[in-house]
């Protein structure tokens, strides 16, 4: 079964707990899931998650702060981290194709629920949790990271100045 992915950005697709290999076909992307002749129920997990929402976020960000030379050379963390854990359930009848269109509209200030996933050409599928949710934990952690990063940079400058003077 071939699933065409339209406008996918950083969302990941999982099938039976395994990451689906996303292939590129010129300008479009697609993923293939194993054929099934019996029409068994299949569920596809579509996940988008902030890096700062993981358990070891502190050491993760500290590691990149260090190797990114005081955090200057590592990409910034998302200002408004949105969380998506959507499940698309459908019956797999083998040689079939359908499309999933992604909406990557991520509001910056006022959080508005938008439909992040739209299934085209598969009317019998059931979509669960298809809303972006503001990840408040990741947002709070980002603030902590920014504060710590600033303080550590100041401390590093003071340390360098002290070493230079002595």
């Amino acid at each position, binding site marked *: 079964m071939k699933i065409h992915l339209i406008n996918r950005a950083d969302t*990941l697709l999982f099938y039976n707990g395994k990451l689906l290999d996303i292939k590129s076909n010129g300008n479009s992307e697609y993923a293939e899931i194993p054929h099934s002749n019996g029409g068994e129920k299949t569920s596809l997990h579509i996940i988008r998650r902030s890096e700062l929402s*993981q358990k070891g976020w502190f050491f*993760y960000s500290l590691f990149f702060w260090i*190797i990114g030379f005081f955090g200057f*050379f*590592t990409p910034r963390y998302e200002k408004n981290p949105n969380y998506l854990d959507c499940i698309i359930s459908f019956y797999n009848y083998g040689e079939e194709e359908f499309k999933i269109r992604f909406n990557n509209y991520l509001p910056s200030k006022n959080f508005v629920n938008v439909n992040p996933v739209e299934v085209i050409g598969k009317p019998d599928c059931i979509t669960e949790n298809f809303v972006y949710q503001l990840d408040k934990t990741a947002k709070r952690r980002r603030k902590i990271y920014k504060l710590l990063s600033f303080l550590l940079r100041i401390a590093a400058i003071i340390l360098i100045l002290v070493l230079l003077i002595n």
Partner: protein
Amino acid sequence: MENTINKIQFKNRLFLTIQRFNWLIAIIAFIPVLLQLLYVAVAIYVVIRLIILLCFVLITLGLVLLNDKFVEMLKDNDIGPLEPVLEAIASVYSVLYPVLLGVSLVITVSSIIIMYKSKSINKGRIASLTIATILVAFSMLLFYLG
């Protein structure tokens, strides 16, 4: 699933950080080229200034040469402290360039190998890494040829 996401995010961030370092190397490698361009720009400025002053001499039929300040201005064609700076930078970069090119090449080649091995080929990333390395090689070539 959780571990897979963590691994992918870690790898992506690592690649992007390395990519930024590669661009930093390209910018560092381009400094002597920019200074050479500055040197050329200063030289052009001196020539234009001299032409304008000579025009003044022609317009006033040489009478302006009686003014001591103008004669001083005419004689003052020194490019300034740029030459010793360029010499100092040239001596540093003659050693630094092979190191910069080596590091840039290692970053690019290893990143591309990792991308192909993990089957997560990102054409944009490969292009960015390659352009940065080409810039380093190009500025090194200009430096040694000049």
